[in-house]
């Protein structure tokens, strides 16, 4: 089985992101594989091992993302592709993935249900559309047998089991697999695994960010005695101005 796992290069979920001149200031921020992508990668490693297939990892990003790609290789991907471009919007990224996938014909194209930086959650759907194959998201369980995938999806108020023929695109989330910690041998061999850098196909992004707004800092909490309703009403009128 040929599997492609698309990973995003995102700030560590615990990182504080300062803003400078209205833009996120990412200097000094630690980057990781998108947490949902990490789940997809973990399941892909299991499926690759079971099928003795091949697992390729792909990222759309600049050279600074290579450390994140190497981590995916350390976790178990066989080789990697970096599309040398800044991921401007979901359509741009999806177009790059689709261009690679058209040439390579993968059985499964897996990624997280969404990234943890912009949380767009659109790339998997767009890739599937561009390739004319099905997309299942959020996929919480995945088994593949005889060219057919069986998946568990979370839906409003319950869960549904879906089947589809390969190839297909999946947006994954836990508990599809447990995150894998790269073992020491994997880390040591990651640097020797092939990482191909390809130039992007020419696609114009369809959206652009006009501005960012940082939520206002939370003010101090004022405690009012439970019996002092008058004071509460007064403050709601004069200070909070919600009445």
């Amino acid at each position, binding site marked *: 089985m040929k599997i492609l796992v698309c990973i995003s290069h995102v700030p560590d979920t615990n990182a*504080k992101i300062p803003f400078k001149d209205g833009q996120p200031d990412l200097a000094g921020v630690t980057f990781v594989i998108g947490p949902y992508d990490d789940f997809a990668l973990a399941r892909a490693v299991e499926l690759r091992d079971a099928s003795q297939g091949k697992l390729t990892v792909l990222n759309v990003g600049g050279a600074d993302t290579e*450390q994140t790609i*190497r*981590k995916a290789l*350390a976790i178990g991907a066989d080789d990697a592709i970096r599309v040398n471009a800044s991921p401007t919007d979901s359509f741009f990224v999806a177009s790059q993935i689709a261009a690679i996938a058209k040439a390579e014909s993968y059985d499964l194209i897996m990624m997280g249900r969404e990234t943890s930086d912009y949380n767009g959650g659109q790339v998997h759907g767009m890739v599937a559309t561009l390739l004319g194959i099905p997309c299942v998201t959020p996929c919480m369980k995945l088994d593949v047998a005889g060219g057919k995938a069986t998946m568990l999806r979370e839906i409003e108020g319950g869960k549904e089991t879906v089947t589809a023929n390969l190839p297909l695109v999946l947006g994954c989330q836990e508990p599809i697999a447990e*995150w894998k*910690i*790269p*073992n*020491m*041998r994997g*880390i*040591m061999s*990651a*640097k020797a695994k092939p990482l191909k850098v390809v130039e992007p196909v020419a696609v114009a992004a369809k959206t652009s960010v006009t501005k960012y707004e940082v939520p206002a800092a939370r003010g101090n909490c004022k405690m009012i005695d439970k019996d002092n309703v008058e004071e509460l009403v007064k403050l709601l009128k004069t200070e909070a101005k919600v009445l």
Partner: protein
Amino acid sequence: MVAVSNQNAIKGGEFLIRETEAHEIFIPEDFTAEQRMMAQACEDFLNTEIHPKVEEMDNMKNTEFMHKAMQKAGELGLLGITVPEEYSGLNMSFNTSMLIADVLGSGGSFSTAYGAHTGIGTQPIVLYGNEEQKKKYVPKLATGEWLACYCLTEPDAGSDANSGKTKAVLSADGKYYTITGQKMWISNAGFAELFIVFAKIEDDKNLTAFIVEKSFGGITMNEEEKKLGIKGSSTRQVFFNDCKVPVENMLSTRGNGFKIAVNVLNIGRIKLGAGVIGGCKMVTSQALTYSKERKQFKTPIANFGAIKRKLAEMATKIYATESLCYRAGQNIEDNINSLAANGMSDAESKLKGVEQFAVECAIAKVHGSETLDFTVDEGVQIYGGMGFSEEAPMARAYRDARISRIYEGTNEINRMLLVGTIIKRALKGELDIITPAMAVAKELTSVPSFESIDASLLFAEEKSVIKNMKKAILMVAGKAVQNLGEKINDEQEIMMNIADMIIETYAAESVLLRTEKMVGVKGEKACEQQINMSKLYVSEALEKLGTAGKEAVASFTQGDEQKVMLMGLKRYTKLTPVNTKELRRAVADAMIEEGKYCF
């Protein structure tokens, strides 16, 4: 024996008489992306397998817990870090193995089990085993199929390990030894399949080491010890009753056991120095988080100067332990590589490479374990009443930390050992302490130099302080040896005073050199807090050196000689007063802003 051609190679203990440049030392900031990925994997392992299950680990109700955790560590390759590849290991560099020990050190009981298995359990065979022994046992240990323990200590033989009473008697047919005796405080005993056992043959002066499989029989154990800390680590008394060990399981040669014990401990010591760093950082970050949440007098206690002082002191000491451990670690690594390049075997180059830096290993052990104890103590204090409760993490950290000053040679033994080693090497002519000591003695009776210092240069005064600290050591130690001769070994208090002077000097110099190297890469602005911590550390180290020096001088000199010595100490401990309050506040504020230990 292979001659070492590199005459300029740094020697162990030489820092006392040699000026080191910043570019010559390794600093943690030099670690590669790959090494950082390994460290992160270790942290992920702890965050998944150990930290969330610490209660289960320490109550020991699940007797399989530690065994399984160690095997999971084995699956990640963590048990074969320093094992050669031909025995299923990863043969990583010395400083990489220090980094792994550093990160895994925050695992409490797990860290002890891990250290005992990979260090004193596995290394004796890796370093002293013959080819058959290595092939037979090391792959099992490197993968975690078998776990190992190290049986040296006996009820009446602790620090004086060579006085053990366990006997090994050769059978009439010459095919096996029968081991009989009692060992205690044996880490990992409860689940070990392999025992490294030290025993005496006939009336030998020195111990002999044996590789003993549990399946050989004749091994019984007491129940788990009830300990102050690291409660989840298996520690038992082990009894050998007519345990039959094939002669081919003797490790190295007859009577070589004590040497094995000592050399394996050298490695263990510096690893322990690094092994406290992860724990220290975790405790500091936890205390910091608590101090931001805990409000008194309507404000988070992190805003109070008394708390900031504690946080900054914790950070500064950790920064120092880290600086000196990786500096020494790289010296060892370079020495190992140089010996190996000159044709020495892998095992011998590792042994000799580390032995050369026995002084630095002992410094790392003492400094690291005392930094840990300081950190957990202040951690409890910052948590206040909650620090005394088992519901908060500090109580466990406080209990777990205490063993570090005891095992791998007590800190007292290590202090005496490091001074003893320097004196021995000086008397043998291996380390020329005598010439510079005489120069210092001459300088003492001459007019003091009034050389001015260019204060515009970074650390100009601090660097001069380090030079003077070394002079103070040479003055005090030189005079002590001169006046006391060999009796100095019986004057343990003086030995410990001198050790404190040496430890503080090595730490202060390592801190300065690290920061200077970092500034060279990132610039002063980006290293503001590191500069502050360096100034703080040098100022405190100088105070400690002065106190230890005075105590020593007053105990072995009198009259005019004492006056000259005290004048000398005064001259060598001068420093323009530093506003430590402001420096500490700045360091603490940076951490408060970041929300964790961040240097």
